[in-house]
């Protein structure tokens, strides 16, 4: 009964007395992006959004220079971050401390791509606190960070010897004669090739290669030669006395592996539906570079389709991106107590993905519960004056907070959205500022905090 519904809708709207004017409707970006928007986009995708000054710095380097600086992060000192974390005296045996530690890294790191790629790997090569203690996950996280841009073979060979992964997918305890197939199956299905590119027989044979290992309570990996199956195995058509490392080599030799990784990277960094020619091009780069993740990322960021309007705001931020991004872009100072629980409410418990396939992501991030949790985090950030220190002066190039709400709003939107607001949005927000007014003693406290909250709540801010 569309007619009836329309009537009710109209009545309800009229009753509110706030009829929508055409000018208020937000339009997607059809025009070419401005340079500021392009660099803001790069820093959202390759990191967690720009801290004050970062867009300007990237712009000064030019596109290729900015991409190289993001990729060559080992040349960038992260001393401030490490000092900040050390001062918190976190206990990595405690899951909440471990989660805080990582979230704060994302928010305050000088090497955003390093943390972004670590998050990518955590979502692909999953492991969970459900089956391994926090110190194991801490160690895995450091491994993934250390090799974040390495070649995929190095990463896969390392992760098969990682205590958290060995527990998570049952490499630990798998013995000859009755091999546990869990890891072998996910290696083929979820980490490298995908269903349809291997047989059940390949799973069974590969599983034999991962037998003979245990992990003790301290996280030491122990190899027990008698429990290892060193017989001949035929995997994807190749026969030999294969061990774990050779299995990885055989699997990554398959053409499907490069395509698989290219797709995963493009979906994470560019758009949920990467065009076929991007996949082909990135897969080709992966093949010719020995599956170098750094080479693939460089190509992805330099391709025109990375910053085409069709990719702009086409990704929905994960909770970690939303939270770390808000902290980072506002240069908000916090010790992060309480943030892991807020992230859980948003549907992402770091170090505890829902299952081996990781977080489904995309539209699945947004539902009633998670949206409320996101807005309540925004409220916490904007108004918890004890836990969060905001310094509005730092958001403006002049180092002073403008007294005029319009100038304040324009500058803040430039930070948080990395681009202009629509005329309609601007009018709504200015009307809000005018309505609530200011406190003569503290201009920021009423309309300023209100505007911060509203900008963080905007649909655009949930998109990367």
């Amino acid at each position, binding site marked *: 009964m569309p007619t009836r519904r329309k009537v009710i809708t109209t009545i309800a709207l009229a009753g509110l007395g706030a009829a929508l004017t055409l000018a208020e*409707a937000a339009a997607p970006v059809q025009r070419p992006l401005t340079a500021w928007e392009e660099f803001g986009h790069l820093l959202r995708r390759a990191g967690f959004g720009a801290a004050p000054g970062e867009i300007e710095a990237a712009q000064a380097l030019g596109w290729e220079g900015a991409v190289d600086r993001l990729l060559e992060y080992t040349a960038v000192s992260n001393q401030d971050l490490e000092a900040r974390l050390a001062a918190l005296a976190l206990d990595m045996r405690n899951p909440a401390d471990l989660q805080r530690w990582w979230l704060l890294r994302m928010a305050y790191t000088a090497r955003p791509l390093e943390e972004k790629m670590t998050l990518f790997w955590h979502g692909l090569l999953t492991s969970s606190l459900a089956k391994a203690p926090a110190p194991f996950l801490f160690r895995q996280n450091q491994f993934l960070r250390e090799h974040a841009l390495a070649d995929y073979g190095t990463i896969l060979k390392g992760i098969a010897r990682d205590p958290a992964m060995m527990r998570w997918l049952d490499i630990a305890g798998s013995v000859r004669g009755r091999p546990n197939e869990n890891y072998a199956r996910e290696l083929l299905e979820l980490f490298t090739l995908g269903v349809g590119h291997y047989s059940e027989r390949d799973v069974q044979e590969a599983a034999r290669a991962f037998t003979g290992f245990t992990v003790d309570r301290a996280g030491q990996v122990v190899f027990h030669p008698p429990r290892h199956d060193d017989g001949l195995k035929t995997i994807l058509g190749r026969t030999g006395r294969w061990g774990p490392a050779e299995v990885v080599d055989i699997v990554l030799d398959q053409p499907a592996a490069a395509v698989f990784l290219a797709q995963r990277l493009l979906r994470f960094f560019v758009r949920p539906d990467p065009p076929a020619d991007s996949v082909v091009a990135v897969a080709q780069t992966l093949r010719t570079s020995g599956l170098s993740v750094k080479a693939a990322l460089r190509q992805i960021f330099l391709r025109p389709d990375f910053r085409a309007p069709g990719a702009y705001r086409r990704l929905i931020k994960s909770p970690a991106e939303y939270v770390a991004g808000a902290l980072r872009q506002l240069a908000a100072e916090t010790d992060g107590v309480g943030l892991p629980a807020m992230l859980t409410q948003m549907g992402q418990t770091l170090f505890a993905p829902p299952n081996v396939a990781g977080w489904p992501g995309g539209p699945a991030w947004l539902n009633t519960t998670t949206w409320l949790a996101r807005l309540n985090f925004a409220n916490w950030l904007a108004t918890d004056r004890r836990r969060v220190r905001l310094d509005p002066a730092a958001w403006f190039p002049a180092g002073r907070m403008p007294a005029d709400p319009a100038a304040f709003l324009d500058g803040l939107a430039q930070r948080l959205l990395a681009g202009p607001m629509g005329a309609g949005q601007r009018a709504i927000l200015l009307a809000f500022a005018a309505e609530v007014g200011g406190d003569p003693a503290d201009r920021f406290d009423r309309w300023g905090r209100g505007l911060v909250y509203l900008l963080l709540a905007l649909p655009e801010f949930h998109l990367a």
Partner: protein
Amino acid sequence: MLRRRAFLTTALVGLNAGLILPNLFVRALAQAQADGSRPAPAAGGNRVLVIVQLAGGNDGLNTVVPYQDGRYYTVRPTLAIQPDTVLPLTAELGLHPALTALADLWTAGRLAVIESVGYDHPSLSHFEAMDIWQTADPERGRRSGWLARVVAGAVDNQGHPLGAVALGTHLPPALCCPPQGATLIERPETFRLATDPQHPDVEAARRRALERLYRAYRPPAPYAALFETTATGAAVSLAQLHQALATYRPAAVYPTTPLAHGLRLFAALIAAGVGLRVGYLLQGGYDTHAEQAHAHANLLRTLGEALAAFWADLVAQGHGDRVLVLTWSEFGRRVAENGSRGTDHGTAAPLFLLGGRVRGGVYGAPPDLGRLDPNGNLRFETDFRSVYATVLEKWLGADAEAALGRRFPLLPVLD
């Protein structure tokens, strides 16, 4: 005119107090009300399934006690429930005395015990076993929960935001992945849009601006429909939940336990008629490896009293026939007690179904203590997916084969 009045009240409360309805999405609320006046969906009618997960592995043998079986008393020298204390169900089986509160339900023929529920090659790991139960897949190939597929599709195509509600801090995997369609509520008190504690007077203006900003975000802006559905769903469910709780007058006295509080919340939603189809909550603490007797009795008492209050409330309000409660646990416990007066991880165990349409009784044979597996655990008789299939097909009107991947025999437990 009840609907119209409820709508006006809600809108009014929202506008005045600014705390309940984020007056944002009045348009959407009107739409939801209009949708609510349509005929109910055919599948499953207005029936409600409430799932109570007993987390940690409930000791089935001490829940439904084989009180005539000498072997039970032999292997459980300190933990066995004595024959003269059980609540007899049959000549062989009786309930743990801490479940006294369920006696009326049993007498009324509204409590069913399904014996020896499990699956082949059972996992003794909490994590794996929970995963298996939640995804309904012992092969562990599936990623999505057994109810997620149903909640997202067949059960409610009306888009009621409170069609599936889980209480707790995590969305249960049974309703998850993708999580669309299920609402997670940690506590009603925190299921709100938070406000600026320093300037509560700013809130009304903030909400108004929020509403206008979201209304201005329209297609073809990216994900416009998703943002509208999400924000609308949030506005409507906030309004409905808090109104349901504010106006609810239970017809029974609920214990003060979290479990009973959760069931009371479900009763309020059922009475409010906001389209609840699946409610999910969890009682933890069943991993009784040591000094089990006292702890287990407390758990069962809490469970029995909460369920009995819920049931009495529903019946008094005339909703008994609309509600089915299913309890489950990831596994039972080892048949023989251990040296710490506790029990280790086991396998098959009984589960409960209760409700106005339940045909009371014991289904399946008592556990066979003479035919254990090599680990000293019970062998299962009824596949847990038969229980799921029965609930899906006979209660929710869903296609069990599509949801579970294949057919399972249905149990004659529902009218």
